[in-house]
């Protein structure tokens, strides 16, 4: 089929339409770069919905008692917020957008191994998203179980849970296919001479992520199927009335959902590992250590799920085993932080927007991660489990970590993706407003949790009022920052000044192709020699 129309090497992927016209040249395109943008736009839509729900929650919590909604609505809002943010934004986020766009280019390939499967993953993603939306719009009530769907509440509630669960299942399938595609691509399609130890760090993290996606997602898939069957037939697997064990549900759920948090953070760490060397103009410090820690996180992260269940009634043995393993998985993250900071040492640092995001990433990631240590320790987790402290932890790390990395990545690769540059002044303003808002929004939640305010609370006692006000104000500041950032990016994608091939003097392969890249990326397949490597700044 391709032999008929040879693909030009001088037309950018944004202009080349292939055999379809208009929108069809996007939604039928198997070009990994176009698929990446499809993901970017569809995620952006879902993301804005999630953000609005987040803001609504904060508005509700500005004062005790009813502010803008009923308890029923609040419960629905945090459920949908959680489902959207986890299953549609941060789990697929960096792999589907930046992984798709950059993985083939960074390893010197023309596309991913299975381009059609890649497009199919996006369709499946959209289907999953539509199912979740359907659960909100139709039927008798929006799901209200929390994103964890804990049994037995999840088959007692009268709300419209089935489509949401099925949606999560379908989204998981999309994520599996993406992971599979990336692993095969990395195994088979690296440029000649690019050995494993010459592969840049971002593809490495995608490789680790791919494995977690493959091995963890099916477990939650089957678990969600069982919850649906339970709702429909009452088979009893998790129903205590029929002999089932609700705690077993929690085991299975977290066997996926803990590794899932590393699905989220690993590509984020990968993006940071690209940005820092580029802006320090320096070889990354401890390449091998960073690779090893990536694989260690992926591997050990598979066995720590029980730290979400310290009060659920596990045996003591299981509790301290999980606590111990949790502490072990923190060490590779620490190694990464040390290596990033050391990369800056003796560098020649250029202060640009992506670097600001990366540096603030390190800061908020440390806060999020270190608060994870409080949660990993038995005595203290019993105290703060299911309080606002946990909410603060995961917003700092999920959204501080993954979100900041996402924004860092988009400011870093934007010129490559769209061939244009954004307004740097505006981008920096957006960053600082966002950063301040972020701290004001989530830091008070640590305090609230330490004082004992439970999470998923629609209403709270007056003693928690002051900190909640600060938090709500923070959410507005942050939203303002977000608006600045998004407007700047959207405008620049169309009207920004043309960008160079290599505006940051990066050393990885994507900076050797034109911006935006041509359809099959490389006019000539790059070949790695003995001395070449991803971060050779000489």
């Amino acid at each position, binding site marked *: 089929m391709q032999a008929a129309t040879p693909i030009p090497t001088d037309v950018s992927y944004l202009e080349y339409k292939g055999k379809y016209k208009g929108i069809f040249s996007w939604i039928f395109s198997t070009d990994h770069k176009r698929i990446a943008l499809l993901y970017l736009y569809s995620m952006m839509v879902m993301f804005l919905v999630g953000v609005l729900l987040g803001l609504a929650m904060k508005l509700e919590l500005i004062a005790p008692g009813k502010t803008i909604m009923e308890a029923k609505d609040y419960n629905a809002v945090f459920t949908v917020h959680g489902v959207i943010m986890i299953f549609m934004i941060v789990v697929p986020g960096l792999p589907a957008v930046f992984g798709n766009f950059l993985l083939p280019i960074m390893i010197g*390939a023309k596309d991913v191994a299975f381009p059609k499967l890649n497009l199919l993953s996006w369709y499946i993603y959209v289907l999953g998203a539509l199912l979740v939306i359907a659960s909100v719009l139709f039927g008798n009530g929006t799901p209200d179980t929390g994103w964890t769907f804990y049994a037995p509440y999840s088959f007692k509630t009268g709300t419209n849970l089935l489509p949401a669960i099925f949606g999560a299942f379908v989204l998981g399938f999309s994520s599996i296919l993406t992971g599979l595609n990336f692993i095969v691509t990395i195994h088979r399609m690296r440029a000649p001479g690019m050995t494993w130890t010459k592969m840049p760090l971002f593809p490495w993290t995608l490789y680790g992520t791919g494995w977690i996606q493959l091995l963890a997602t099916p477990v939650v898939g089957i678990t969600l199927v069982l919850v649906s*069957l339970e709702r429909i037939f009452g088979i009893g697997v998790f129903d205590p009335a*029929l*002999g089932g064990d609700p705690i077993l549900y929690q085991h299975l759920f977290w066997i996926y959902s803990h590794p899932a948090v590393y699905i989220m953070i690993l590509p984020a760490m990968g993006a940071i590992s690209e940005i820092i060397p580029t802006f320090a103009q320096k070889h990354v410090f401890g390449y091998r250590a960073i690779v090893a820690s990536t694989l260690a996180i992926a591997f050990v992260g598979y066995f720590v799920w029980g730290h979400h269940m310290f009060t659920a009634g596990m045996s003591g043995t299981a509790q301290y085993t999980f606590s111990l393993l949790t502490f072990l998985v923190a060490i590779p993250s620490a190694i990464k932080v040390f290596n990033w900071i050391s990369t800056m040492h003796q560098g020649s640092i250029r202060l640009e927007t992506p670097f600001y995001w990366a540096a603030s990433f390190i800061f908020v990631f440390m806060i999020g991660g270190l608060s994870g240590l409080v949660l990993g320790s038995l005595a203290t987790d019993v105290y703060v489990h299911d309080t606002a402290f946990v909410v603060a932890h995961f917003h700092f790390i999920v959204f501080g970590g993954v979100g900041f990395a996402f924004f860092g990545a988009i400011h870093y690769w934007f010129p490559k993706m769209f061939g244009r540059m954004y307004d740097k002044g505006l981008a920096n303003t957006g960053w600082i407003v966002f950063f301040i808002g972020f701290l004001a929004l989530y830091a008070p939640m640590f305090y609230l949790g330490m004082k004992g305010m439970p999470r998923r609370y629609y209403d709270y006692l007056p003693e928690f009022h002051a900190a909640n006000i600060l938090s709500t104000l923070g959410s507005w500041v942050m939203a303002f920052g977000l608006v600045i950032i998004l407007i700047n990016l959207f405008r620049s994608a169309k009207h920004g000044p043309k960008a160079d091939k290599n505006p940051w003097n990066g050393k990885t392969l994507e900076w050797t192709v034109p911006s935006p890249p041509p359809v099959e990326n490389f006019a000539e397949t790059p070949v790695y020699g003995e001395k070449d490597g991803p971060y050779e700044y000489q």
Partner: protein
Amino acid sequence: MEHTVHQTHDHYDPEASKIGMWLFIFTELLLFGGLFVIYSVYRFLNPEAFHLAAEELNRAIGTINTIILLVSSATIAMATSAIQKNNKRQTLLLMLVTVLLALTFLVNKYFEWGAKFGHGIFPGSEHMIQTMSKGEILFFGLYFIMTGLHALHIIIGMAFIIFVMVLTARGKIHSERFALLENSGLYWHLVDVIWIFLFPLFYLIH
């Protein structure tokens, strides 16, 4: 490590599709893996009831079905050898045998399930709730889910093999290009492997 082959224009890389298939098989293994975790936990918590309930299942049908699947696995494996020798007729014949055996397996399952339903044993049945202990209800719940999901995989596998047969008949699959046939075989063996575990776990605990 394996060395890198630069892809050509027509994207045919049998090694890549083989890895892809294996990775997919891993996800399937973990899908059933989740169920095996559940099974082993409940079995551990209700050993007596599981014994009792397993008595209800028919060992003979189970054994026959096991053998059917094993034979069909051998035939599809032989089909991959046949295609490499470019023997199209033999390939198609072996695949046909595989599909027919799969069908027999399903027919057996149909009667087996039918008999259970006839005795009032099916998910959510009032009869079970009234006459059985919680452990037995769990056993049958798992029995239906696991064998049901397995049967679903049999159906998918059959469809896959039939699809490959059509391509083979049309000459799209031949001794130079048979990755798809090999993959359908891999998938079929996966279905077999899962049954190899389901069989003792459900039929052989006495």
